[in-house]
Each structure stands twice: as structure tokens, then as C-alpha cells.
């Protein structure tokens, strides 16, 4: 146990050092740009003057982290098995539009309707991810290229659907194409009540703090349990660490590839839902794009572990939230992207270094406890 503790401690120290370094590097850039790094730093923590603005910004921050977290989870499930699912982007967009459309075609009591939408989204994402999985298993097609291609196809398909078969009513003069609006019963209740606990006014922003956050937490726990505690998760881990050994141990790599890819895709399918069910009530042609790619960074930053991914998603969301505040402080907002990139790079470097250090420590400990190979006895 102390070994594990050591390791965790090292990881945290590494991450902190990396973040501090990233801030330092970005400060240099900010100074070079003729802006004030202190102003930039304060901007990150400037949630506005009024209580209401603070609540809104907290909501914006938390809401942003939800899709990032889910996206990170989706990517991580693949990574655990050395499967690189770049296709999360396409999977979530296709899933989002189909789920939004299906959800708008009927009304049912809220829990049922929401459940149906969630299931549809997961199913569509999973099925779309099944394509590269089957291609890999049956024909050995590299999943990286296959999913890149399928992303383009999904984007076009989505565009076709939103303008054609799935197009909904639009207000006069509204140019954004959209699916039909979801009924009230399809909207996921917000969790603004948590602001009451702190004596804060609830946020007025969009749907407030999206209730989907809770579902995301549950999802995180489920993914953790599946990956870390179940036999399936053991198979995933074994396949990821050593494919041939897993095969020889009776883990069918083809089944595992399909299962992991479908699971990844199914989770990916949920990425768009917080926004649809918590705020927009429809899928439209301006729907947030690029979450699938950000998910890769988030997953890597979180070391493909749900808890790490949660922290990474919060960090990214925290940085993203400051886009407006930075501009108000006259700091180029692209600093956020630079910080994100630098943090990802430095944190993984730090991970690498601390990992090696931890292994070294572990080996030394093992060797010392055994006391073997010490030349003392034969020191003649």
C-alpha cells in the first residue's frame, strides 16, 4: 500500500509542477504580447462582480466540464485497450442528432422520455463505433484511419439529416437549421438547488447547472467499476497491457475490440446530450463541434482513469470559461489554448518522469526486501 501511496503522491507533485510550469510559459507569452500576466491570472479567477454573475460563471464552468468529461471517458475506454478511437467526434454528433430527433417524436413522462433519448444516443454512438471495430476485426483495417474517415462521413450525414429528414420547424427569420424542439418532459432537470446550500442565488444561465452532471458522475463511477472491478474490465486491461498474453489466457481479442469500441462509442453518444437536454432542446447546425478531439486531450491528461479524467475535464473547463474574462482584461484569449496544450505536454512528461521514478523505487524496494544479489556473502 505505501508503494501505491508513494506513486499517487509523485503523480500529484508532477502534475502540480507541470501546471506551474505551464503558467510560467504562458506568462512569458502574455508579456511578449504586451499584456499583464497578473491581469491574466486574475481573469481566470474573476467570476464577475455580482453574486448572480458568480453563479452563472460557476454554472458555465461546470456545464462545460460535463461533455468534456464524458468525451474523455469515451476516448479512455478505447485507450485502455490500445484502441485509438479518433471517431468520438463523429459518433457523438450522429448520436446527438438522432437522439434529439427521436426524442422529439413522442412525449412520455419525463424519466421515460429522457431514458429513451439516452438509450438511443448510446445505441447510435455504439453502432457507429461498431463499424470501425468490425472493419478492424474482420479485415484488419487500422482503426485510426477508419475513424478519421468516419468522422467526415458523420459530419456530412449529420448535415444532411438536420437539413433534410430530421429538420424541424423554425421561427421566421431564423437561419440556423434545427431538429424539432424537444418537449418539456424531455428536458433534464437542473441541479441549481446546490446553490441554495451555499446561500448563493441560482444561476440564470441557460438551464442552470445541467442535471446531466449527476448522470456523468454516475457514468464515471460505472466506467470505473467496469474497468477496474469486473472481469470484462480485466480483459480490457490485459489486452491493453499485453495482447498476446491476453489471447493465450482466453481473452478473445476480437470480442474485446468490438466490446471496447462499442462501449467507447456508446459513451461518446452521450456527449451531446447535456447540451441538448439541459439547454438547447434540439440539435442544430451550430451545435458545439470538436468535443471529441478535446476528449482525447482530456483522457490523456487524466491518464485514462475516470478520476483523473474528471480533474482534467474540470481543468479544461476552468480554462475555457475564462475566454471572456481574459478578453475583458485585454489579454489575447488564445492564451487558453496555449496553456491547455502546454499542460497536456508537460503533464505527460511529468507523468513519464514520475512513473519511471516510481517503478525504480518499487524495484529497489522489492530488491531490498528480498536482500538478494547483495555481494556481502561472497565478498572474498
Amino acid at each position: 500500500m505505501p508503494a501505491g501511496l508513494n506513486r499517487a503522491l509523485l503523480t500529484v507533485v508532477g502534475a502540480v509542477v507541470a501546471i506551474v510550469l505551464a503558467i510560467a510559459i504562458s506568462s512569458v507569452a502574455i508579456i511578449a504580447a504586451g499584456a499583464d500576466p497578473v491581469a491574466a491570472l486574475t481573469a481566470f479567477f474573476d467570476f464577475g462582480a455580482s453574486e448572480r454573475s458568480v453563479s452563472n460563471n460557476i454554472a458555465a464552468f461546470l456545464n462545460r466540464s460535463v461533455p468534456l468529461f464524458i468525451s474523455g471517458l469515451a476516448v479512455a475506454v478505447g485507450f485502455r485497450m490500445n484502441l485509438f478511437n479518433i471517431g468520438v467526434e463523429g459518433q457523438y454528433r450522429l448520436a446527438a442528432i438522432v437522439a434529439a430527433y427521436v426524442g422529439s417524436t413522442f412525449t412520455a413522462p419525463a424519466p421515460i422520455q429522457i431514458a429513451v433519448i439516452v438509450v438511443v444516443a448510446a445505441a447510435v454512438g455504439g453502432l457507429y463505433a461498431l463499424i470501425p471495430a468490425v472493419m478492424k476485426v474482420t479485415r484488419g483495417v487500422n482503426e485510426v484511419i477508419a475513424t478519421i474517415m468516419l468522422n467526415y462521413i458523420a459530419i456530412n450525414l449529420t448535415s444532411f439529416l438536420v437539413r433534410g429528414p430530421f429538420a424541424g420547424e423554425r421561427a421566421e427569420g431564423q437561419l440556423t437549421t434545427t431538429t424539432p424542439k424537444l418537449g418539456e418532459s424531455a428536458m433534464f432537470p437542473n441541479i441549481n438547488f446546490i446553490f441554495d446550500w451555499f446561500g448563493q442565488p441560482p444561476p440564470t444561465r441557460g438551464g442552470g447547472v445541467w442535471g446531466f452532471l449527476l448522470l456523468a458522475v454516475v457514468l464515471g463511477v460505472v466506467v470505473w467499476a467496469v474497468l477496474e472491478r469486473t472481469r470484462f474490465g480485466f480483459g480490457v486491461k490485459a489486452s491493453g497491457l499485453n495482447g498476446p498474453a491476453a489471447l493465450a489466457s482466453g481473452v478473445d481479442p476480437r470480442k474485446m475490440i468490438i466490446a471496447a469500441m462499442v462501449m467507447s462509442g456508446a459513451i461518446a453518444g452521450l456527449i451531446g446530450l447535456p447540451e441538448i437536454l439541459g439547454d438547447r432542446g434540439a440539435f442544430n447546425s451550430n451545435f458545439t463541434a470538436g468535443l471529441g478531439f478535446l476528449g482525447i486531450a482530456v483522457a490523456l491528461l487524466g491518464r485514462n482513469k475516470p478520476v483523473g479524467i474528471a480533474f482534467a475535464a474540470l481543468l479544461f473547463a476552468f480554462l475555457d470559461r475564462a475566454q471572456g474574462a481574459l478578453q475583458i482584461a485585454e489579454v489575447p484569449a488564445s492564451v487558453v489554448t496555449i496553456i491547455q496544450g502546454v499542460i497536456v505536454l508537460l503533464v505527460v512528461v511529468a507523468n513519464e518522469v514520475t512513473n519511471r521514478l516510481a517503478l525504480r523505487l518499487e524495484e529497489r524496494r522489492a530488491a531490498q526486501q528480498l536482500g538478494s544479489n547483495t555481494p556481502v556473502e561472497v565478498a572474498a
Partner: protein
Amino acid sequence: MSADTLATARPAVELEGITKRFPGVVANHDIRITVRPGTVHAIVGENGAGKSTLMKILYGMQKPDEGTIRVNGEEVSFRTPSDAIEVGIGMVHQHFMLADNLTVLENIVLGAEPKKFARLDTAFARRRITELAESHGLRVDPDKLVEDLGVGDRQRVEILKVLYRGARILILDEPTAVLVPQEVEELFQNLRELKSEGLTVIFISHKLDEVLGIADEITVIRRGTTVASVDPGDVTARQLAELMVGSELPTPETRESTVTDVVTLKIGNLTMGADGHRPGADPAKLREEGRRLLLDDVSFEIHQGEILGIAGVEGNGQSELIEAIMGIRPAHGTIELAGQDISGWSTLRRRESGIGYIPEDRHRQGLLLEASLWENRVLGHQTRKPARRGIWVNRRASRADTQRIVEAYDVRTPGVDTLALALSGGNQQKLIVGREMSGEPKFLIAAHPTRGVDVGAQAAIWDHLRDARAAGLAVLLISADLDELIGLSDTLRVIYRGRIVAALDPTDITPERLGGYMTGAIAGTEES
């Protein structure tokens, strides 16, 4: 020997007070060795004694913490292998150091490329290689891809690599581990030739009779330190072994037969094509069409309490046979376990029905190096007690059972949460043996169960195999160690080019004759 005339010359290599520490391990401690030029100098020692580390230091791959190296009387300090190559040292590593997807020529010239402007001068290189090959009797085709070569050929490529660089001092780290006796003899012939040309050879091996046959001088290393330097004329293999370990050498001898007449495993007409598997194809037709077969009509039975040994030069179908039985690679033919046809079953189902598997390469097929010991215990048993609890992995029970294995099989480890990579190879192997025995298998595949394992662990593993056999286990034993094969097996089969070419009685066969069958020198006479 010629050694006498050279005795007055400056030593080719002098190592003095070499010490090398790794985190938690002192691999070398105050090592002293003097190698006279134009001799074959053997270094022997247990696994992990520090032989490879010492040689890597001499070859510039690792830096010693203390000590001096003198080559031909001059003190040297190497930063990289190229420094060592420069003063005429070449090394053939314990594991092949070849790039499979490059040609023999490319592998040989790499790092010392002849150039015409920037262009690689292949014509010149081909000439040089052919010259070298002819003058040293090392036949190779320079334009073949290395992946198409057998082990013997690869070994020759490795030696050519060294000679190509004009090395005068050759280090050979366990070059014979993968060779059959005939190939070993051929290699030794090459070495003697090199020696007669004045080259110096440093030779590492665990096979003491080989060492006695070739060496002019022997240095023994124990636990990182030189403990003796002896003349091969003065010692016997047994004495040498005792110097190495300070104890008596165990021998793998089966005491009394426990073979019953209950068939546990029955293999019938197992056939596997080289160019992929087509279900429903007729093996006879495949043969008729002249397709290359990795397994060709292999049939045998193993009874309860019997160890069946398969002898063969590596690459003659052993791996394919194992993988076919495990269901990892598809093949034609029948496989029956306790009377039940299992040829259509998945690997998992086969394991569940009582097949245990000690793989030939523990790092490739046997372990999750970056996972804890108890997770490695679960591997292959994830669907059975005690690892299983519904859809969950039963962590507590798995840990407890791993603890049991650690104790019963004397796995030296700080605990069951230690990562597998922190263990030495022998301990890793003991863990694997313990794991595979714990499913109470009916049938066990043991592929090279003691490869690279030191004598102590070797004896322990042999004991476990014998005990299990006595309790009714059927074992398919595959090994490159002919003593082990002859000593442990109740029955012997020889596999050659995918066919079973001979059935032999281990009680009256010598390693030499066995080697004859394995290389096809003696035609397959069926004895039984």
C-alpha cells in the same frame, strides 16, 4: 595449445575492479578478469550472476560505476558501443539483435556502412560479406530478409556483423542456447577457426560440457563477483557447477513411471497451412498442391500421469502445435481432451475444461508485466474460482490465493501487490507455474518451463512437474534443453518440419542421437 606461445603477449582484455550497481541490485562487484589474446575465454555463472552486465560494460553499452578496462594493454573508457567497436570489440548478444524487416546485408553493414557519396555501396558490401562468409565458413544469403531466416542462420549473421567491423575480440553471450548439438558443433568449428587467425573470443554459456569443450580458460562468477579462474583441463562439469552455485547440481530424472492407460489428450492428424487457415479444406489436398505446412499430420496421445516430450529445433512447428492445442491458431484435425472433441472450442473454454499453459516466452504470453502479481494470478483464470464472483473479479480471494502460490512455490517477492516486472525471471516463472497448476488441470503444456531460470529454481520447477505427474497430470513438454527433455519425459517425439518424425524411448537415447533426429541427419525410424 597455441596459448603457450601467446602467454607472454599483452592481455587482450583486462578488467579490474569492475563494479556496477542498479537500483537495489549490485550486478557486478569488484570483478577481475584477464583474457589472453588468441584464446577462447569462457565465463560461467548462475542466472543473474552479472555476466551479461559485465559484457555490456565491456561493449560500451553500460558504464561501470568503478573499475578500469584495458584493451591490448591500453586503458579505455567507452561511452557508446561505437567506442568499443573502434578498438576492435564486437558482441553477439544473448537475444538476437536483428531487424527482421531488413536484409541480411543491411543488418550486417548497419552502423558501418560502406558509402559511395551518400549512397549505400551495396555492391562493395556484398563482396565483403561473401568474402568473410567464405573465409570463415559462415554461409548466408546477403539479400534475404532476416525474418525468413532460421535461428542458426541468424546466429551466423550476428557473428558476421561483428567480423564485418573487423573485430579482433568477440563477445558471445549465450550463443548456443537456441542451437541443436550439430549447430553448436558447427559454431565451435567457426570459433576455433577464428581463434587460429588470432582472434580472441569471450564466451558465455550455461552448458558446462560445451564450455569444457571449447574454452582455453574459464572464469566463474557468482553473485556479481569473480570467484574462480580455472583451466578446463583441471575441472569436471560437476566441479564447475559447484563453483557456480556452491551446491550440488540437480538432474532431471524421472524416478518411476506413473503412466496409466487412460488417454487424457489425443491429437489426430493435426495440420496447419502456412498461408492462412481455410475451414473445410482437406489437408491431404493441401499437401498434394505442394503448399507449405507448418504442421503436417501430427498425431499422438498423452495418458494420465505421462510426460510426453517433444524434441525439435526451434521453428519446426512446436509453437504452432502449442497454439493449435490452445486454440490460439486454427488448424485441421482433431483434438480430444478426456474423450471430448475440443477442436472447435475457444481458448477460454479449453482452459476452463482443464488445460494449463506455461508459455515458451513468459514476457510475451505469460505475464502482464505492468500489473500486480495477483492480477497475473487472475490471468487465464478470470472465469473460474477463486478469481470470479459473478461479473466481478474477486480481488480478496485472488490476493489470498496468490499469497498461497507465493508461499508454496517459493516466489521471492515483497508481496502480492508488487508489479510483475519487479521480479527476476526465475521468480516470474515460478509464479506462472504456480498459477497454471492451481486450476487443477488435467493436462499441462509446459514450453521451456526452465528457460533462463537458474539451477535452484530449475530444480523446484522440475519437482512440481513430477509431483503433478504423479497425481495424474498429463504433460506436453517442449524444451530446447535436451537433458531436461530426456530426464523428465516418459515418451519422446521428435518434430521436424512440422512432422513427427520419430518416437523414441528416453531411457536409451543420448542427446547427440536426439540431435541427429532433430536436424534430420538420422532418418525417422519409428521406435515405440
